[in-house]
């Protein structure tokens, strides 16, 4: 096993900021998402294990141990495994690389859905977005990523780079420990996205999880890279969401922006007009 893993580890290139913040970028090159996940898990094992010690994670993990929480967890895992098998492979690799239980990685990636189902709902405020245009009509999009003071030191950047023959596309972004790209700010060379959490009174205990849908909508599905705003919106419009999200989309190549709100089977797009502005 060690000999098999060694070549993979050699491809991982952690980059550290040289000044005030040493926030790492885990730049991994791979031919499969399992291998990419394995490398990320290895590199981010410390942050992942620290995240598992936080009260927020422990409460969510406790919720899925029995009763309605366990049933919802099983249903969410089932539905998202069917819909996103490649991303599940990335999670499996991450769990092995970090030497942690796969279910803990699942909980990390289903946090928005699970927390919305918890009786003593953890209502974590999330994020502010500003869409604007400068006097020449060039877009500007700003985002505050909010979560909790406890999570502040634990997040990192990830840059996934496919090697020849890989079954995934290039993707970069901000990642929470144990979480795949897609939940926080995510980008490739064509698209950029951020997310705002929404708080509907009810959410489903099964269905598609926002992190997986958003990952595909921003970066791609398999070898099919997301390259346009229309394509990104189409990939968000899956229906069958378990919960909800407000997604902020910027087409880097086309120079246009939209806000999307998704809730269960509901879906609406708010284009930001050229020279217009919008806030979320």
């Amino acid at each position: 096993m060690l000999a098999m893993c060694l070549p993979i580890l050699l491809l991982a290139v952690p980059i550290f900021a040289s000044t005030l913040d040493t926030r790492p970028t885990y730049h991994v090159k791979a031919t499969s998402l399992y291998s990419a996940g394995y490398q990320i898990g290895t590199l981010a094992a410390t942050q992942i294990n620290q995240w598992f010690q936080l009260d927020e994670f422990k409460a969510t993990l406790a919720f899925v141990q029995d009763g309605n929480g366990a049933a919802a967890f099983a249903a969410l895992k089932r539905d998202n495994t069917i819909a996103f098998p490649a991303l599940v492979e990335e999670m499996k690799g991450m769990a092995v690389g970090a030497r942690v239980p796969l279910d803990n990685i699942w909980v990390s990636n289903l946090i928005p859905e699970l927390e919305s189902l918890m009786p003593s709902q953890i209502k974590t405020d999330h994020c502010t977005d500003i869409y604007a245009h400068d006097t020449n009509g060039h877009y500007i999009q700003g985002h505050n990523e909010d979560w909790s003071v406890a999570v502040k030191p634990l997040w990192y950047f990830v840059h996934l780079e496919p090697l020849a023959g890989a079954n995934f596309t290039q993707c970069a972004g901000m990642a929470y420990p144990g979480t795949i790209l897609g939940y926080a700010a995510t980008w490739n060379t064509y698209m950029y996205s951020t997310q705002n959490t929404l708080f509907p009174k009810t959410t489903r205990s099964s269905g598609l999880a926002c992190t997986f849908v958003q990952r595909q909508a921003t970066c791609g599905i398999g070898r099919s890279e997301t390259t346009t705003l229309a394509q990104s919106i189409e990939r968000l419009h899956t229906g069958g969401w378990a919960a909800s999200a407000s997604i902020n989309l910027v087409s880097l190549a086309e120079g246009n922006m939209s806000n999307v709100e998704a809730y269960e089977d509901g879906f609406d797009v708010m284009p930001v007009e050229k020279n217009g502005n919008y806030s979320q």
Partner: protein
Amino acid sequence: MFKHLVQGEKADAGDASTEHRQQRVWALDVPRSVTDVAKILGDIEGNKDGFPIYRKITLTTLIVSEKTKELMIWIDANPSTGGSPDIVWNLTSLVRVDAGV
């Protein structure tokens, strides 16, 4: 808070923080530059009612610019104070450049 999906607006549980931050954004001038956007995202006027835009739980601020094709990132630092971003990603090449490098 849902803003335009009717199904969501009907189901919205309400969120005082979002309502306060939205009111504050509407009270400010329309942003026309990266600096303007940074000022809004770093606004702490709402501290007096407990709902500032830039908060203790703000992990990072990200601003993407079409003009420069760059993503500017301030990490645990208020972007309205005039400081340079800690990290800049070139979105054409996906190369990261750190401050001072």
